[in-house]
């Protein structure tokens, strides 16, 4: 069955999207070749790996491992070539005509601003601020778990760029408050959530598996947590949200939309799929049926439907 292109169209933070599905940051996304591969999956936008001002080395392997519960545990360490790679990524995305969202990382406001400016100067579509990586010292959640830090980073970036700024937040006790601060500071959208800090021990060698010991849990095990965060944040602010965490079928994506998301990111499931193209088109077909089932003409009408009384 052909997809009903009109029904699946959506928008986020002013970005027009052919459909709600994009990749989550950190699955490829820092070379021209990666962008090309991701584009071949049929995603509506591509999110890059988190880019820091200068090249950053990652941890020694093991950096990623699958768990028996169907999730992944990773501590890559935000390895990336630095902001100089942005020009090439944008150029490649433009060739294939797909919106490109630059995931931006830093240790302080100045570093976030530095990469954000590079993204804007190269005419990237939008910026996603990584305020949520749970395992890299000095980055991510170490900054993003404090709502005041979230406010100052988002404010610093939003006041120097014109392209839309999306704040990606992770699980923390004050995530709802952080979401409010991000919006107040000028974020046009929120990506919820990142991986959840976790670890795994091998019982035969009695050693932690990741070289970094701690990592981030992703995939199906975190989906209900992500749904809860999206639901609470939407309830509070009615903001524009990208649901992220554990989507592996149309049902998971539909759940995010019902909770309040206008778009959805997929990471782990893309990596575990035998055929990522099929995964994307199956999720989209399922979503379309679901919209029809409820008599919704467009995604927009389904957003936050679980909140209606």
């Amino acid at each position, binding site marked *: 069955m052909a997809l009903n292109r009109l029904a699946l169209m959506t928008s986020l933070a002013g970005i027009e999207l052919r459909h709600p599905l994009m990749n989550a940051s950190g699955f490829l996304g820092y070379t021209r070749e990666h962008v090309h591969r991701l584009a071949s999956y049929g995603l509506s936008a591509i999110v890059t790996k988190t880019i820091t001002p200068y090249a950053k080395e990652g941890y020694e*392997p093991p950096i990623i491992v699958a768990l028996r519960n169907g999730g992944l545990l990773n501590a890559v360490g935000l390895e990336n070539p630095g902001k100089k790679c942005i020009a090439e990524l944008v150029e490649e995305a433009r060739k294939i005509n797909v919106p490109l969202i630059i995931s931006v990382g830093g240790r302080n406001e100045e570093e976030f601003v530095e990469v954000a400016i590079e993204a804007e100067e190269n005419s990237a579509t939008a910026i996603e601020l990584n305020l949520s990586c749970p395992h890299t010292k000095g980055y991510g959640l170490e900054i993003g778990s404090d709502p005041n830090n979230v406010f100052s980073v988002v404010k610093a970036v939003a006041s120097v760029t014109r392209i839309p700024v999306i704040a990606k937040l992770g699980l923390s006790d004050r995530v709802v408050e952080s979401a409010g601060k991000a919006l107040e500071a000028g974020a046009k959208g929120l990506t919820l959530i990142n991986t959840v800090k976790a670890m795994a021990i091998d019982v035969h*060698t009695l050693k932690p598996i990741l070289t970094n010991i701690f990592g981030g849990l992703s995939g199906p095990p975190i989906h209900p947590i992500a749904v809860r965060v999206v639901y609470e944040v939407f309830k509070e602010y009615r903001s524009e949200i990208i649901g992220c965490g554990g989507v592996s079928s149309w049902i998971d994506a539909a759940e995010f939309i019902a909770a309040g998301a206008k778009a959805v990111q997929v990471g782990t499931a893309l990596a575990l799929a035998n055929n990522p193209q099929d995964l994307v088109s199956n999720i989209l077909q399922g979503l379309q049926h679901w919209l029809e089932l409820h008599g919704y003409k467009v995604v927009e009408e389904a957003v936050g439907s679980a909140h209606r009384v």
Partner: protein
Amino acid sequence: MLLEKDENKIPRFSFRPFKIIENIQIASNTFLLVVESANSLDHFSAKPFNFFNIWVPRVDEIPLSIAYQNGKRLFFLYKLRGLGTKTLAQQKVGSFIGIKGPLGRGFEPKRSEKWLIVAGGIGIAPIPMLIKRALELDAKLDIFWGVRVSTEFFDIAKIFGLPNEAWSIVRVSEDCMADFCGLVIDAIRSVNVDKYDGIIAIGPQEMLKTFCKQYGESRENTYVSLETIVKCGMGICGSCYIRESEKLLCVDGPVFRCSEVAKQLEGASA
């Protein structure tokens, strides 16, 4: 022929416990590692040119080609390179390591085909497994194996108990202590490659570059098994990308047609 990608990734992308059965030096700088699954329910079907990521706890995760499989036992041949392989060489018989895999796509001849195999150095590692499959497929392999010094040679027939049918081997060394004196790439110059259904080379990047220049441009069935940096082995981290290609070595490789990796090989230091 390139084989289908393996399904069911969760177990393949986890570290499964294996006990070390043997870990011995068999030639200069070269080790044989034999491991056995600690889980009696685990079953593997590794194919030639698949690789496994060997986890040396707290130190590294090392991609190694499968050299041979016998039921629950996996065999690997490795050269000492960095800290990871050196620590691996110190692991004692009876201790445990974790293994992720099989990774990558397998590669084997079609039934009754005849292939020319060009191996450089430890590039011989996947060949015993290929010979095993060739015997099952009634295929024929002519192998040329080149090394720098002849102390790097070891007897694959003896180590893996391979019968003498279905394959031949010509040893080539730069120290002139073997069947042919010089580079393996020179040793195959006199061979009529047209009588083979395909040719495949595996070894140092510089050798593969010369190989593809000589044979890859005019022939479809010319393959190389490449090496790149492999970290996750799962198609996620992106470190194994092939220049100017959508392909990832850990998912789509390590075997590629010469025509697919021209730009990657161009980057090889001359």
